[in-house]
């Protein structure tokens, strides 16, 4: 009897309409066509020196991420298609699906390397520069250690001045993390 019920449920579920999810190609080709990207964009992706290491502009001035509606079956010219495929193969990480601007595509590898655990909702809603700043701040916080440890560390280079500047940096990072969590994340990440 249980098997019969199982079969019924499975068949009912398999018959249910599933929403069409745009492909990764559809997402990337939309950025390529919207911003008229060329082969020089690949050079930027290739050049590690161009990788951003922190927030390039004040986080509060980041433009809101647009609601995206990629075409379900996009077609592109041969050059655009080749560029989109090259971007997909070079970046090769799941965050690329949520990149809606060229700069976000550029930030994709660094962001994924720093924190591969962002949820889909966060990635859809927040600019990658913001997430990168948040992930870097968390990483730096981890590296600097707890404030109590800083106060007690007798080996701190620079002596007391070093301790003060390290505390200030810690406070700054903490403030950044709290601000991002409060204003940009709904609940947790």
């Amino acid at each position: 009897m249980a098997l019969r019920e199982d079969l019924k449920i499975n068949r009912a579920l398999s018959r249910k309409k599933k929403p069409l999810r745009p492909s990764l190609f559809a997402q990337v080709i939309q950025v390529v066509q919207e911003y008229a990207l060329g082969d020089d964009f690949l050079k930027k992706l290739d050049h590690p020196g161009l990788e951003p290491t922190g927030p390039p502009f004040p986080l509060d001035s980041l433009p809101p991420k647009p609601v995206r509606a990629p075409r379900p079956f996009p077609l592109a010219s041969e050059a655009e298609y080749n560029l989109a495929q090259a971007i997909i193969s070079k970046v090769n990480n799941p965050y690329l699906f949520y990149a809606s601007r060229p700069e976000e595509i550029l930030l994709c590898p660094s962001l994924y390397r720093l924190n591969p655990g962002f949820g889909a909702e966060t990635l859809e809603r927040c600019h990658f520069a913001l997430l990168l700043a948040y992930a870097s701040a968390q990483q730096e916080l981890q590296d600097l250690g707890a404030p109590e440890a800083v106060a007690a560390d007798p080996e701190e280079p620079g002596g007391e001045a070093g301790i003060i500047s390290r505390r200030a940096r810690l406070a700054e990072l903490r403030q950044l993390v709290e601000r991002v969590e409060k204003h940009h994340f709904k609940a947790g990440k």
Partner: protein
Amino acid sequence: MRRLLEGELELAVVSGFLYLPLRFDPGVAREVHREPGETAGGEARVGVIQVAGQHFVKTLSLASLIKNYGKVHPDAYEQLRDDYRRKHGLAAGWPGMLVGRKLQTIIFQIMPHFLRRKAGPGRKRLSPEEILELIGENHRIPPEYQEKARTYLDLEFLRNRLRELEESDEPVEPLKEGLVTSRQLRVWLHQTLAGEFRQEEKERLQEALKERGALAATRSRHLAVMLYLAEVGSLEMEGFGFFRLGWVDDYCIYKRTGKFALKDFYGRPYLFPDCRVAVYTTGSLKPVVLEKYKHPFLSRYAPGQEICLSNFRPSREFTAKNVIRALTEGLNGLFYNYTSRYRKGYHRLDKFWEAGQTFNFDDYRVPRDHPSLVSGEIEIKNDFT
């Protein structure tokens, strides 16, 4: 297609076919880059070629582009034609037919049917010359049409224009094979269409020369009548008439009923005023009454109403026979279809009980000894006793 011609695309022309740049997605790319031996997806690569490292897909033939451009983009086509005519000093519609085909049918085939019974003691149908003569006698044709008729019969001007067009013939080179730009395609298309326009104009001139040559034997008085009718587009004679609808070759053709009488159940006569039963050459040939009119076979008291005819299926084809039949059916419907004994039509002359009816026929009722009825001037159409 407009994007194809006005954009900045690079296209390919191979064996008389136009190839457009192939648009890619992963599925298309898979098919295109499939090895020749692979069979998945069948013959998906048919129509895809590679020129100068780019992939192109087969679309329409150049012959089809030329043939159907006027249907796909009628506005642009007409604009090109107008430009061509303006460039070569040919007015729109020039030289054209003297009288449109519909007008010819009305004058020479429909009108004689309604005039012949009064044309003389014989029942013979009037010939075109007799019709024109009759119109000339009954209508004052302004003298400038005589002058126009004489000019019209001068064929030398037309012959010169035809010669000029023939001398300006320039063969159009076929579009080169290989890569071409949208601009090159556009220029070639315009040149080819100009060649077609030239050919059309030549044919029109030849037709006009033929028509006018045939009219050379016509008396200039008759030709003046035709020119007058072609320009004015309306005429009324002995109760039959027509008038043009707008600027096109479409007409409203009508026949007047004259005054007539019908009788009701009690034998009381009702005198109906004159009205025009008409058909339009556009759409189906349904008989209507042009004036604001009331009659048992009209549903309301309003102008332009269709006459109730149960056994008549109007044709949509404009021919003399169909128009004559529609007008005759309409007239017979008003004259003879009403009987006081059966419930036919929308209303009855002697009753006023239908819900929502806002009129009756009391104002048409006349005494039995009305002078027009007694003298026989006005006939009671449904007096079958």
